[in-house]
């Protein structure tokens, strides 16, 4: 039994943390959010590192690693709040891999793995679906929960929409026809939810660190506010939420490859817990930061907003909790 990362996984984590700290500090996130555009250089570097294909098999040009490695990257990208189309592309890859025919996999996975022909997928159930990073994608998955199908982006009507999360691009996408996805889309979506849970865990971790650092520095009534239990216990609560989300997310990632029969319950638990944790922790961080946390000038709001939107995508906490209740054995 070893519920930790192996050396290679640890190295992936450290490389990601270092690279993103250098190439995508919060100042760069702010710049991207304020101009509502992704920095090309960051995505180019991510592609060079082979991240988009981390969980795609070598046959399709990927690295042939698994969900654990994808979750490591996704958590770090959440921690950095990095403005890239990484996550939507990765989730599209997971859904096409599990839900596509051999032909569909051959056609799309190579582009997704290299990032040359990105994929994306609708993250909400209503019509037209809300799709992250639709612009510039090659292929888009629509109606994943009901009648999953793939459409070429050139055949789709893409209406950009601005959400409160300006660190990611969103659009409403509609299209007629397309090719149905007839395989195990549900498993692909469960894996996708786990990748997003990892991003949310990373967001929670970053927000907690911002709050804790501030609580050590900020003085009121002659001492650091972190010395007051009203503040320090709130910070302890952030660790509680973040670690629970992390444990469930890592477990779900492991189940995906090693114990697939446990993936449904594990993925619903991970996404539900991570959605709640990211929102709660970013809120608690705002409370610890006080007035400064409510200003545009402070970076926290980028995390808070991405947490809120992320919690709604690929099943909100309510939906996932409902599934957890059923899978835990409650009769409907």
């Amino acid at each position, binding site marked *: *039994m070893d519920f*930790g990362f192996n050396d290679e996984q640890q190295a992936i984590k450290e490389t990601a943390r270092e690279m993103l700290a250098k190439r995508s500090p919060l100042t760069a996130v702010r710049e991207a959010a304020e101009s509502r555009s992704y920095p090309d250089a960051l995505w180019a570097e991510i592609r060079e590192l082979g991240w988009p294909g981390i969980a795609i098999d070598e046959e399709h040009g990927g690295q042939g690693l698994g969900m654990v490695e994808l979750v490591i990257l996704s958590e770090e990208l959440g921690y950095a709040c990095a403005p890239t189309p990484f996550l939507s592309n990765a989730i599209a890859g997971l859904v096409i891999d599990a839900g596509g025919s051999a032909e569909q996999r051959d056609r799309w996975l190579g582009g997704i793995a290299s990032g040359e022909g990105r994929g994306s997928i609708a993250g909400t159930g209503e019509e037209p679906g809300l799709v992250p990073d639709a612009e510039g994608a090659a292929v888009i998955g629509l109606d994943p929960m009901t009648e999953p199908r793939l459409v070429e982006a050139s055949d789709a009507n893409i209406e950009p929409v601005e959400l409160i999360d300006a660190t990611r691009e969103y659009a409403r996408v509609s299209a007629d026809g397309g090719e149905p996805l007839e395989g195990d889309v549900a498993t692909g979506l469960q894996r996708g939810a786990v990748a997003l849970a990892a991003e949310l865990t990373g967001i929670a971790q970053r927000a907690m660190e911002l709050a804790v650092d501030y609580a050590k520095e900020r003085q009121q009534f002659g001492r650091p506010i972190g010395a007051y*239990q009203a503040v*320090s216990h709130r910070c*302890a609560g952030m660790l509680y939420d973040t670690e629970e989300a992390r444990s*469930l997310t890592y*477990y779900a990632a492991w189940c995906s490859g090693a114990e697939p029969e446990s993936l449904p319950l594990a993925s619903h638990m991970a996404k539900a817990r991570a959605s709640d944790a990211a929102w709660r922790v970013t809120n608690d961080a705002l409370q610890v930061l006080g007035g400064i946390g409510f200003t545009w000038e402070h970076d926290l709001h980028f995390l808070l907003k991405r947490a809120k939107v992320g919690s709604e995508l690929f099943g909100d906490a309510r939906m996932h909790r409902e599934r957890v209740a059923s899978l835990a054995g409650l009769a409907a």
Partner: protein
Amino acid sequence: MDLTLTQEEEAFRDEVRSWLGENDPGPEPEGEEAKFLFRRDWQHKMHEAGWAGISWPKEYGGRGASLIEQAIFSEEMARQKAPPPANVLGLVMGGPVVIAHGSEDQKERFLEPILSAAEIWCQGFSEPESGSDLASLKTKAVRENGGWRVSGQKVWTTYAHEAKWCMLLARTDTDAPKHKGLTYFICDMEQDGVEVRPLRQITGEAEFNEIFFEGAHVDEENLVGGEGNGWMVAITTLMHERAGLGAASAISVRRDLDELIEMINERGLGDDAVIRDRIAELKMGVEALRLGSLRALTQQMKVGIPGPEGSIAKWEWAMLNQKLTELAADVLGPEALRPGTEWSYRLLRSRANSIEGGTTDVMKNIVAERVLGLPRLR
């Protein structure tokens, strides 16, 4: 990352499982005294088969089990609803203290009877005025002929009336700073200067006791780890909490949760949205506790100290147990509120979970100070 057991670990689990299966003592009897005798017999049986004190080194009669084996053992005990051994404090705290800090004579004298439950141990740490602030304790030990003379009061002592020995933390130097003036003694409970009074709890039971020391005598040879080192001696075992305790407690909460889910289904309440939400919340909490404990255990095996996930386990467990019993009481309605019923007992008993063994408030302080590095308010 690999959450499956290795072949050796699996073999160990199978061995534990089959032994527990074959030697299942059955349900515990009612009543404190009967329960105690039952647990003593059970420990005796465990000891004969080599399962008492599995974490202890082999040279002292233990099994020298690895951390993961200890976790597996605790999980299996919880899974099979096996009762705890009677001398749990001796096994978990007293013995390890003697092994780590005791003299050869002390090891020779004390260890074997702990394992066999021939001599029961109790813990004299908390006092009426020293709960979370344990180091402020006032029970005093002063030198007298051939040893020490003890006066003071201890509280929340499990099995004090059954115990032969008390792990006694007493102040031997009133001038030293509070953590430095304490000494760790092994005090004989069978003497005139020691009086034990049962302490009735909100459940109506008396699981715990108060101990009054009035001129009790402790032989010089029963001082452990040197005069003035009591805090350090006491803390070593508190720090090496039982490996896998979190994972084992998660297994037993999970078992309780399954029982509750069955109760809800039987009553046709499974489609109630609020109940579904509360069950989902509990399910996630139980699994997060189990998985977090396994992560902490992995970290402890790799680098010697448990990861931060471990420090939230006690807090998580207390909260889960309380929420679970509350939901059960809501589901059962008034039938759960009659004294003496199982769920009324569990509802009330779980109120202590966020107090005993370190209050949740203190656990939050520990997380804030030691994990997050926030300043202390002193």
